[in-house]
């Protein structure tokens, strides 16, 4: 073993250890764009995922329960989005100390003043984007990498920019580890450590843009790099109290560009829904009591 690969191996092992996931024996089979995991049976889903991806059945069970909740709350409605939700191993993207809350509905701290968004928000924002295979999607604020990973199950062209360098590097280590373990779909993510304000013009224009950092205005360069009829979503406000702004850019027959701001609930006020608590797939009350 030469020195370089030894170092890389050590780094990957260190990252893996830090995230509480030792390299497992069963390597995931590469992501198949045509395959769908079973969605209406918990046991069948777990079995399928264990077989296909070699993931931990406990986390898979939690993921399935969360999936049911998210569907019930209508943050997920499209089958492809549902698949993306079910195929993304959230436990790989949270800090070790939060592993037991990886599938709670909450957003979690990942250091540097950054959070991994709650799964419902991720599901809702991605649902609104209506990402199709082949879409170019730009993400501003890679953070934990969970959103990028989620997008990798919807399209093969994901561009993600992170401003905080140590976070950029840490997330890079997580992706490298996952890809090495067989999650080849994550190779679709192209990342850079830079100021996301200016977008990534070399790779634009983009069909969809998702911005996950606070700002007092929508960065004009991002609006420029959005294709006509493109959609951009931006959470506004602090974690936990975020409202999501949807921006749609349209070009009229006369070539005039207009930008419309709307909410991601299609003109509806979002009713508060206590998040139901599931235990072994059964609803046993709400999240709070």
């Amino acid at each position, binding site marked *: 073993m030469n020195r370089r690969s030894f170092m890389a191996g050590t780094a990957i092992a260190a990252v893996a250890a830090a995230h509480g996931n030792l390299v497992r024996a069963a390597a995931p089979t590469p992501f198949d764009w045509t395959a769908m995991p079973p969605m209406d049976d918990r046991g069948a889903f777990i079995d399928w995922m264990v077989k296909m991806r070699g993931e931990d059945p406990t986390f898979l069970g939690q993921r399935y329960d969360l999936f049911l909740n998210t569907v019930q709350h209508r943050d997920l409605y499209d089958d492809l989005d549902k698949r993306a939700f079910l195929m993304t191993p959230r436990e790989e993207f949270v800090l070790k100390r939060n592993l037991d809350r990886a599938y709670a509905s909450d957003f979690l701290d990942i250091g540097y003043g950054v959070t991994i968004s709650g799964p419902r928000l991720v599901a809702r924002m991605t649902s609104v984007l209506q990402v199709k295979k082949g879409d170019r999607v730009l993400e501003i604020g890679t953070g934990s990498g969970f959103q990028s990973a989620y997008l990798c199950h919807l399209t093969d062209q994901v561009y993600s920019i992170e401003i905080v360098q140590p976070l950029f590097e840490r997330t890079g280590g997580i992706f490298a580890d996952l890809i090495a373990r067989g999650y080849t779909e994550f190779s679709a993510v192209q990342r850079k450590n830079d100021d996301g304000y200016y977008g990534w013009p070399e790779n634009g224009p983009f069909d969809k843009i998702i911005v996950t950092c606070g700002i007092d205005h929508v960065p004009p360069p991002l609006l420029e790099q959005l294709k006509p009829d493109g959609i951009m979503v931006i959470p506004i406000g602090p974690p936990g109290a975020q409202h999501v702004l949807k921006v749609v850019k349209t070009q009229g027959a006369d070539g005039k560009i207009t930008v419309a701001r709307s909410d991601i609930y299609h003109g509806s*006020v979002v009713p508060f829904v206590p998040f139901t608590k599931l235990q072994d797939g059964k609803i046993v009350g709400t999240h709070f009591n």
Partner: protein
Amino acid sequence: MSTGIPASEAPQGLRLYGAVGSLAGAVIALQIAVMRVFAVGSWSHFGSLVVSLAMLGFGMASVFIFVLRGWLDRHGEGASRAALVLFGPLAVGANLVAQLVPFNAIFLISDPMQKWRLLANFLLYLLPFLSGAFFLGIVFRQGRAHFNRLYFADLLGSGLAGLAILGALYILPPEKLLVAPLVLWAVALILWSGVARPGRVFAALLGSGATLAAYLILPAALGVPAIAVSSYKGVSYARNFPDAKRLYRDISPFGDLQIYSSSYMHFAPGLSDNAAFNVPELPANTYVGMFIDGEGPSGIMRPLPPEDAAYYQYLPMYYPYVIKTKAKVFVAQFGGGLSAMTALNAGATSVTIAESNPEVLRAFRAPELKEATGNILADPRVTVVGYDGRLFLTHTDQRYDVIDLSLADSVGLSNPGGFAITEKYAYTQQALEAYINGLAPGGVLSVTLWNKEEPPKSVLRFYATMVRAAKAMGGDWAGSLFVSESYLSTTTVLYKKGGFTADEIAALRGHTADLSFDEVYSPGFAYDPASAKGILQQYQDAIFGNAPTDGPATGATDAPGDAAAQGDGPAPGDGASADGGADAPGDGAGDGAGDGTGVVPSTTLARLVWQGLVQGGAADVTPHYVFDVQPLTDDRPYFAGYIRPADLTRTLDRLDTVQDDWGYLLLWATLGIACLAAAVLILPPMVLGGRMGRGKPALIVYFGCLGLGYITVEVGLISWFARALTNPTIAASVVLSGMLVFSGLGAWVAERIRSTGLILPALLGATALALALMTAVLPGLLEAIGALPYLARLVYCLALVAPVGFLMGFPMATAMNALAECGRDQMFVWAWGINGSFSVVGAAAVPLIAVSFGLSAVLEVAAASYALALPAYLSMLRRA
């Protein structure tokens, strides 16, 4: 260490009073220092919570002293010395350990660990206060025969320390501020050790010196931050930028102001999305960021080259210049200077800017920032008013074509930890009237606010305020208003003196369309309230809804497979018809709640609210909205407390939906804990001390009323005086110091009155009357002194505090003397504890009363407390 020391060694006379005064001062100084630690490291309202609860240490100490009174008769001196010695090391140790267990407000609900961390912070900071309270309690008990002198020393020391810490804030940065209480503690220690005993004095010097050194050196030596700054504070993000550089820092009671530069900073508050296609890209490095106590940034922009000036037209603060050219402009709050820059670029002939924070003006004049600020204050068209804009306008004969108040502070700009409850005198009905009065004929008032809440709260409160002010101006007020919003961005309200012409309205509408903003109200704006049908109920459900019970999600009790199937039923992809659509978002459901024109619900709501406010009477929908959006007045100047008190318990399981109001909810939590603690602290002597005589209920009422009344006046007047002094920290220092010193004098004089006579009841009545009178005269007086030089305003405020402060010094001193005189010694410490516990209850209750009922009500509660103390005192005397 307590045994074997002869009683004669206890300090007497001046040395005793000096030590008591110094330590009482150290306790006050520590309170303020800890508050500053929280303000800079996390969020100030959590500091208020921790400090106000730590003051329960006084109640706790009194219970311990009460229980241990026999032992303390023998070992009091040693115990008091130990408590005194421990104060400093405990303060340093608690502060250091607290930095190791910082808690993160934004995860308070979701992460169970955070509650324990908050508790740990409280318990840590309780320790020094407990030791200080022990010392004072034991000394008071030992010297009860001279209570009023000790009390005088205690109040005088606390009062002077309030002024001392105000001075210290100019020289000590927050991370070194504990030096102030430590020095006061050292003085107390040295005085207590005995000047005539060089050995002991040396030991005291050595000990306090070592403690001070530990405070300053240990953090660096142990690798612990002197203040653990939350990574979610604005300044922490700036520090993460690779090229971040701190250009400037200034500390003062106005806060810890820091300015950072970084190419990663981009400001354009409220910039229209259309700017992207109409304005050339701005040059890089156009901004620096200003942070006060780590909050921010406020963007400071360097002047743009003329070819980029179109940029300003896409900012919301440009609105008044659509119809006003060559204007004489007044900017009511300068802030980061963007409003002034916009005015200058819009061709203003003169721009007068007001800024009440001298720190900000100093920064803009600092040579090292000349390039970053473009030296805007030196522009010949700019005139600077070094105090509050509203106060200036009230007292000037100048009239302006445009008066601007734009995003002056972060009202409504979400803050991860919620907002502390502070008075916003710049946005009250009376303030808006002052601005309007400052307009020349045809002049325009332009107010821009953040509009980032969903459901909206602060903007609706502001709308209600604006309408009320406009109505008060009379004339065709409904024809003088124009309102435009940008979803999840900003809202701008214009008022034109004399009303808008049709051409002006057309121009403003055109501008609104160019910006892709939404018109919310204008004279003649066609709006059918019927289109907003059900929206109030939907917003009600947005907070208090419980969809699984009224929706189709019967899956709540079903097997998971079924739940998934049921969930699919109403999914938006299916057209959202299954359950009536209101809560069924989806691609096909475009008109779920709005008026079917693609307008977002909050804009629909805003239009409905404006329509109702303008029509008035039954058309006004604000009483039916889920949140309290009553207008701001000088008596109730708060962008806080949106949750109606009746709804409080319903928010408990959905706190994350009301995160903006956490500062307010935290006060309810503080009040709850304080009441509980007060009850617990009052109980043991009730149970244990069965033989100590009758009249306990009267005693509880009397000392409870004094505790409640005193703190209510203190905290209430701080809020009142913030209006004339424009800064809460300075108002707090002046009121605290003034009240305590004058009360000390009252306590001193109290020695000369007989506790059994009718003088004290008369004084209690006079206090109640004086407080009631203050609510009537203060508004006018504060308005009148507003434009005087700052020092004169300070002196006037002290003069206003003096009479009530003096009167309020008597009741405690006289009654404690009475207890000592009639041999009810065991009650003595208990009464002191009751007083302390009710102070904590009062401190938490004041902002709640102010937010719910107004600042006058606060003084009325205080007046009622003193009035109620009168019969309680008479009853106590009868039973003694």
